[in-house]
């Protein structure tokens, strides 16, 4: 079993945002990692798949699942940070203007929901009705169709909107968020049985994340033209460089792969957001993160 392919559960279909991840996978493969991947429609499914042992390693931020279910799930790498942007019509100029106003978010209990909770707390405001539309691109469509005046969307969609119709919308200034949006996690028992694979994987990720911070264009250069990213329609591929340049600049990716720092930020964030119970300071990092592979890779 341990010698077989490791099974990776993605939380979305391969697209520009996953290009860096696939570059890392290619590097890991060159170092002897044997893998296969499956895309799920959302992160909850990926978590479920790892929980039930059908997948080895998954995408997402499974804090709630870790606290509630008896399964020993641990995070090993922070893939991206919660870089989301409140985008509104010209009606609003700053976050405080949204007090009592309706807002459109991804899903109840999801990342954008927690961002909204934290905004409420930090700005001391209260949003009006929250409506939920999964998928940033769908929220962009709703925004452009005038069905909502305020939403929270991810970096690439923010860039898209502002490129198409920058004159009609505002990106509200936001405080910095260090918490994880996507992280790589797996069952602790599995990790221990496959220590070597995990190490190769985390090292590859870390090296890509660091190289990318130096030069975002390595992603498009290293992308395998026959891989899942290389096969995307040219309309999408053409934007890779632009996307990663903006992402690195916007601090979407942590060149250190998260670790202790990210764990603390997450506890703080997800406790405020209501996904973790209890006082953040009493939570133990080793109950949620398994830091050994990252430490080994940083050495």
């Amino acid at each position: 079993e341990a010698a077989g392919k490791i099974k990776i559960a993605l939380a979305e279909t391969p697209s520009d945002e996953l290009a860096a991840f696939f570059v890392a996978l290619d590097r890991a493969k060159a170092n002897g990692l044997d893998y296969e991947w499956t895309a799920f429609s959302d992160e909850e499914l990926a978590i479920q798949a790892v929980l039930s042992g059908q997948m080895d390693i998954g995408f997402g931020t499974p804090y709630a699942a870790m606290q509630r279910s008896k399964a020993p799930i641990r995070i090993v790498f922070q893939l991206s940070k919660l870089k989301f942007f409140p985008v509104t019509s010209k009606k609003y100029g700053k976050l405080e203007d949204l007090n009592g106003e309706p807002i459109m978010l991804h899903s109840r209990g999801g990342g954008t929901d927690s961002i909204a909770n934290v905004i409420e707390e930090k700005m001391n405001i209260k949003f009006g009705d929250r409506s939920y539309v999964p998928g940033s691109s769908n929220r962009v469509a709703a925004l452009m169709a005038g069905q909502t005046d305020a939403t929270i969307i991810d970096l690439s969609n923010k860039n898209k909107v502002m490129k198409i119709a920058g004159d009609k919308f505002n990106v509200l200034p936001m405080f910095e968020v260090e918490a994880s949006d996507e992280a790589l996690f797996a069952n602790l028992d599995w990790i221990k049985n496959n220590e070597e694979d995990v190490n190769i994987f985390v090292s590859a990720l870390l090296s890509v994340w660091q190289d990318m911070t130096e030069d975002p264009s390595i992603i498009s250069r290293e992308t395998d033209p026959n891989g899942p990213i290389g096969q995307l329609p040219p309309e999408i591929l053409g934007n890779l460089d632009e996307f990663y340049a903006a992402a690195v600049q916007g601090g979407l990716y942590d060149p250190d792969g998260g670790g202790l720092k990210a764990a603390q930020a997450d506890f703080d964030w997800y406790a405020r957001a209501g996904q973790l119970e209890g006082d953040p300071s009493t939570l133990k990092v080793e109950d949620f993160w398994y830091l050994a592979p990252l430490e080994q890779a940083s050495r």
Partner: protein
Amino acid sequence: MVRRSFWLKIVSALVLFGAWQVAGMIPVSYAFPTFLESMSALARMAADGTLFTAYLETLRPLVVGVAISAFLGIGLGLWIGLSSRFDWLFSPIFIVMQAAPLAALIPLLVMAYGIGLTSKVFVVCIMAMPVIVLNTAGAVRNTPASLKEMGRSFLASDPEIIVKIIVPAASPVIFSGLRLGVSAGFIGAVLAELKITPTGVGDIITYSRSIADYPAMYAAIFSIILLAVLFLNLLERLEVYLFEGNVRGYASD
């Protein structure tokens, strides 16, 4: 006979729920609760009212969509069945619609009609309508010619022939279309709540899943299936009530 079939139902239900309970106890997966856990979650949600507010939300697009599909679908079906011109023009549309995997269209609907009631009603209609229209049209076309002739020979007017002969004669097939349509409508409503905006029962399912409250998720799934089955039984009652003579016994008895 009635007693036996009743007991068979009970026994088969017990077997199924028992299997569920056992599978949950093994457990098959951390994400698979037992039957009893799920039922207590159901009771909890029913007691604190979550379930009812959720269904208020879910039933709105469903009822509106099913009502629209039923009226429009039967009307269009009658029309298509009666006029060869409309048959030519419209039935291919519904045949294509029936064959189409409309789940894929949902993102488009969201873009076109937003996330409100409209697009959910639309999803329900799109799922439910084709089978209602096609069944009605087929049944109307297949009305026994001799009954229509009988009506004419006893001087029925055209509207009378439609109301008193064609519709009742077509009613079993229309109702089976309605049944399939309503069930497709339920699928559409749940799909809309899973893929468009998580409200109502779809919200309970996705939210429970995101906070890893699996018993609640299974309870919600169980309740919607139960509701669909109850709804369809109601429809069957209605059919029996409206067209008593259509109920014939077992062919084999």
